[in-house]
């Protein structure tokens, strides 16, 4: 194969990624009366993290006495005041608006006497998660259906199976993006006045993850294009992710055991971890990792989540109320008794908090580029409460879409740097032209091992992070340059897609380790063995930017325009 065809498109606003942030961005941008294109690397409405959120999972302060102000304060408290307050303040009011849209668009909320029936998840001052009239495990699907229906109803143009691998840089900004059309095996060059990255997070760079396809595609592309990034050391690792029984690895159904059946988190000795730990290590992901490291983990490397203290009738009642969920039927088919045989859980990468640095309009500071959802940083700060990521990401999409639409009306297309598109396409094609080299999947496993070994929750210290960084930079110089796609088919070539993902994972892994090494304190789930305390002097962002082959590291103080952090 010598050459690959290139198609060209030109739009006002390009939205990359069709999860909850991307879809909302597309709807809002179109309402500004501009020409919108929504692209996704998978099948439309079937990809993205939020679309299969299990449990009700959408915090909105829609029932007084709860209020946006209280929701704002709760978000900052759990975020350890690392959030961008101007951004979050706008997001929280936007959530109210988006929730009204969802209600109007047919999400089946459960109401009594005109009020939403709310459940309360940890960290909420008031019950803030509206229940639906359907079982909780279908909630993500309910949101997905309502949103995709709007895209169809509004005739928003969608391109599926398009893997956007790079942004097209101009002298002072971004002129659009270039992607691989997986169905045809050709490149698509999209010129856009405004581009919104709604590509999701990068937790697929970890071996234990709930979302393997989240390979930080937007964050990595932005980094290569010279966009400023921040908060990469922060992420959420969901403690109640199944690791046993084996075929359910990476699934988050055990949250039902925790929240509906008051499941107890136990180590090998039967000690209750929530009683055992105090201080910063009390958060379940850190407590579990600490126990595993000390040799007191459950047999498969996590903790037990036991519901034995409940009566079987009570457990059956809860499952019946949930409509006997699919995961339960599958466990029953495997003859796994969830009461008698304790399940095991371990923290798995679920939500990224770091990405492109954005302002309160979700603009990146690089002309022509916005970031929404997990591709944008500082929405949740250092940590989050269950059920807060989905609405915050959706609100970012709305704000980015509206602002990008407004700006697109007032300007012309940016002019790409000469030869830039060809250079980007040649790089993406490289692994296809090579006859020998490392297979993408092998390289993915290697990078995941490095992150697990050197950047895991427990065990981050100066020496290990430095070693991990050396290993990643070695891989970027050698194996990554030699990566080879053994399959040469153009049509729907999964190995080629994986090669593009692996390049992103490598960049993201380097960014995570760099940021984690720079932050010399512990905060949220970023826990440094050598700096175990949260320090007031570290209320600043670690800011990263590409500088040739190096990463330029600076810090920027967090500002507190609305709410100051408590004194102690």
């Amino acid at each position: 194969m010598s050459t690959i065809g290139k198609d060209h498109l030109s739009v006002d606003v390009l939205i990359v990624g069709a999860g909850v942030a991307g879809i909302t961005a597309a709807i809002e941008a179109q309402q500004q009366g501009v020409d919108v294109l929504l692209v996704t690397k998978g099948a439309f409405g079937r990809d993205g993290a939020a679309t299969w959120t299990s449990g009700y999972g959408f915090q909105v302060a829609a029932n007084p006495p709860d209020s946006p102000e209280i929701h704002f304060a709760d978000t900052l408290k759990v975020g350890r005041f690392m959030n961008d307050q101007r951004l979050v303040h706008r997001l929280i009011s936007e959530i109210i608006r988006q929730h009204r849209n969802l209600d109007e668009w047919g999400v089946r909320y459960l109401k009594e006497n005109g009020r939403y029936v709310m459940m309360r998840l940890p960290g909420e001052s008031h019950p803030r998660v509206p229940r639906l009239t359907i079982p909780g495990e279908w909630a993500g699907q309910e949101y997905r259906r309502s949103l995709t229906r709007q895209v169809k109803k509004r005739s928003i143009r969608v391109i599926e199976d398009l893997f956007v691998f790079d942004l097209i840089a101009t002298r002072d900004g971004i002129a659009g993006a270039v992607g691989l059309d997986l169905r045809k095996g050709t490149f698509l060059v999209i010129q856009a006045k405004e581009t919104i990255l709604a590509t999701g997070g990068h937790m697929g760079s970890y071996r234990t993850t709930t979302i393997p396809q989240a390979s930080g595609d937007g964050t990595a592309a932005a980094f290569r294009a010279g966009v400023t990034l921040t908060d990469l050391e922060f992420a959420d690792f969901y403690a109640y992710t199944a690791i046993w029984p084996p075929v359910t690895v990476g699934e988050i159904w055990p949250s039902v055991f925790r929240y509906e059946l008051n499941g107890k988190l136990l180590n090998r000795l039967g000690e209750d971890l929530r009683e055992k730990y105090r201080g910063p290590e009390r958060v379940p992901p850190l407590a579990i990792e600490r126990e595993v490291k000390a040799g007191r983990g459950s047999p498969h490397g996590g903790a037990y989540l036991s519901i034995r203290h409940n009566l079987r009738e009570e457990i059956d009642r809860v499952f019946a109320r949930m409509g006997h969920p699919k995961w339960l039927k599958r466990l029953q088919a495997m003859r796994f008794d969830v009461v008698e045989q304790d399940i095991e859980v371990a923290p798995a990468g679920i939500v990224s908090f770091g990405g492109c640095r954005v302002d309160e309009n979700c603009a990146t500071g690089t002309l022509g580029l916005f970031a929404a959802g997990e591709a944008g940083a500082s929405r949740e700060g250092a940590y989050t409460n269950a059920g807060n990521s989905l609405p915050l990401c959706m609100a970012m999409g709305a704000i980015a879409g509206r602002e990008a639409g407004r700006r697109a009306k007032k300007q012309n297309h940016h002019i790409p740097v000469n030869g830039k598109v060809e250079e980007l396409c040649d790089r993406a094609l490289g692994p296809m032209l090579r006859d020998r080299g490392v297979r993408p999947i092998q390289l993915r496993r290697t990078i995941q091992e490095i992150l697990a070994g050197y950047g895991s929750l427990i065990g981050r210290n100066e020496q290990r992070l430095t070693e991990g960084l050396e290993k990643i930079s070695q891989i970027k110089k050698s194996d990554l340059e030699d990566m080879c796609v053994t399959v040469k088919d153009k049509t729907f070539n999964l190995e080629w897609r994986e090669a593009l993902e692996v390049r992103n994972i490598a960049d993201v892994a380097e960014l995570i380790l760099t940021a984690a090494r720079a932050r010399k304190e512990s905060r949220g789930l970023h826990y440094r063995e050598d700096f175990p305390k949260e320090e007031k002097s570290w209320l600043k962002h670690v800011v990263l930017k590409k500088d040739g082959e190096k990463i330029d590291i600076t810090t920027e103080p967090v500002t507190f325009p609305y709410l100051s952090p408590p004194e102690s």
Partner: protein
Amino acid sequence: MVNNTSIVKVWRFNPETDREPYYKTYEVHHEENATVLDCLNYIYEYLDPSVSYRYACKIGFCVSCLMVINGKPGFTCLKIAEKEMTIEPQIKKAKLIKDLATDFQDD
């Protein structure tokens, strides 16, 4: 605990190069209670990365991995692997792209 084996017959067709569809058979080693999707992932990782298929959520919601398993439509992420299996694309409602990967337009 990889002590189970399945013989998996996969429907193959690449519109780029093939005139007719054909079946290719693979021997897959897996854990007890592995799913049909686990078998496809094993084929991709260890035997033949040229097989095209789709999946996303892995918990039976997104419908990406709907295929025809031993003549019956089903989610490969939920269905437990059998000793002998034939996997074909679901093309009654969706348009074929390649092998087991299809284009669902309706919902």
